Structures are given as C-alpha cells and as structure tokens.
C-alpha cells in the first residue's frame, strides 16, 4: 500500500467517523458507521489480513450494524432536539482527546526504528492472514481463550433475551 492509496482512504475513514459522532440523527450515524467499518475492511485487505477483513464485513457491517439499525427503527427515535449549547463540554472533550492523542503517539514519532518486527516492506508469506493459518493458530495456541469466548457468547445470548423480555417468570 502506497501513500497515494493510504492517505485518501484514511481521510475517508476519518470523515465518516466524524459523521458518526456529529450527525444529529441516529440513523445517519449508523450509516456513517457502516461506511467507516467497510473502509476499515479495505484497510485490512491492504494489511494482508484477508480473513479479518471478511469477518469485519460479516460481523460488524452485517450483524452489529443491522442490530443497531433494528433497535433505532424499533424504538422509532427521532433526531436529537438541538438542546442548550454545551460548548464547554465539547471544548473540554476535544482538548482531552488531543492531549490523549499526543501522549499515545509520542512513542511512535519518528521512524519505525523503535518498533520490533520485520517492517512493512518485506515479502509476505502466502499463508499470512488466511483462514487456514489463523485457524491453526486459534485452535492450538489460543484454544483456551477460544473456549472462554464460547461461554461469553452463551452468557450474552441469555442476558440479551432476559433483559429484553417484557415479564420474567
């Protein structure tokens, strides 16, 4: 991936991410989020993470976004009323965000020299990021977290059903 593709792609990602938090209507926020997630999937493809890119579209842009849109339409939310200006809060949040960005980026300023690893320009093995390779890693080295994940999903399913139920018992 060259700068010529990276910069427009990241600019689009940032614009649509801003659209998520600045749109007054939740539906528009959700649609902006869909575009952001899709563009991130494109970014993952350029980073040789093919399975992750596919999962990103299926799980995020598919399942999670549909859930969001479904709830927004189910609750029939209208646009937020433009309430009293909360300029102070916005300024404080933005300042805090910029400070955080500065602190988080400080170790990475300059070149990649400090980062361990082979770098972005070297050749990539054919199996890198494929379903077979990730599955192998997942079912050997990460098999315990994988099993814990299944418990998490079970609890989430039960919790969602119980919470959304009208009357229990």
């Amino acid at each position, binding site marked *: *991936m060259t700068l010529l593709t990276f910069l427009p792609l*990241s600019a689009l*990602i940032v614009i649509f*991410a801003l659209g*998520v*938090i600045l749109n007054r209507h*939740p539906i528009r*926020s*959700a649609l902006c*989020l869909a575009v*952001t997630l899709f563009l*991130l999937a494109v*970014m993952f493809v350029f*980073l*040789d*993470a093919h399975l*992750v890119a596919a*999962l990103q579209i299926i*799980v*995020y842009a598919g399942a*999670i976004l549909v*859930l*969001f849109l479904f*709830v927004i339409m*189910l*609750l029939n*939310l209208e646009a937020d009323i433009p*309430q009293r200006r909360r300029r102070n*809060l916005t300024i404080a*949040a933005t300042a*805090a*965000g*910029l400070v*955080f*960005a500065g602190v988080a*980026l400080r170790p990475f300023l*300059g*070149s*990649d020299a400090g*980062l361990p*690893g*082979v*770098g*972005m320009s*070297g050749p990539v*093995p054919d199996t*890198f*990021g494929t379903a077979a390779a*990730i599955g192998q*890693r997942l079912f050997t080295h990460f098999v315990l*977290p994988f099993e814990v*994940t299944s418990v998490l*999903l079970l*609890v*989430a*399913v039960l*919790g*969602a059903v119980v*919470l*959304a139920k009208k009357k229990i018992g």
Partner: protein
Amino acid sequence: MVPATYYIALSVLLFVIGAIGFLIRRNLIVMFMSIELMLNAANLAFVAFARHQLSMDGQVIVFFVMTVAAAEVAVGLAILIALFRHRETLNADEVRMLRW
C-alpha cells in the same frame, strides 16, 4: 510502503474521535456507536502490528475483540430496549437513578 507509524496515527485518531463522541453525545445509541469506533481503532492497531511483525497473533486477537464487541452490543442494546420501555427516553442525562 507506508510505515507502521501512519497506521498507528490513524488508529489513535479514530480512537480519539470515538472517545470525544462518547463524551459529547447524550444519545445512548450514538454513545454505543462511539464505543464501536474505539474498538475498531484498536483492531486497526492490532492488524497493523501483526503485519509489521509478520505474526498472526494480532489477527487472532482481532477475532476475539470482534466476539466481545458482538456480545457487548447484544447485551447493551437489550439494556437500551428495557430502558426505553421503562423511561421512554434514551437520553443519558435523564437516566440518573444510579448516579449520585
């Protein structure tokens, strides 16, 4: 080739946008979407580091992050539905029973 630093910068930017959105918006659903933005920023950093080190562990972690995000959204939206049923509102300022 784009250095890894650029991806980290984009990831931090996305995370900060999500954090600011969480702080300035009062609509609980939009706050939820901001959390998703932050999770995705972390995913981007993981994938970039995985590529930089040519190690697939980062991509496996992304898999787990997605699972946790899906579980979180399912439970969170169920809570929002229950909340809306009781209070007829999704404004975070109007839900103050557990605040001091």
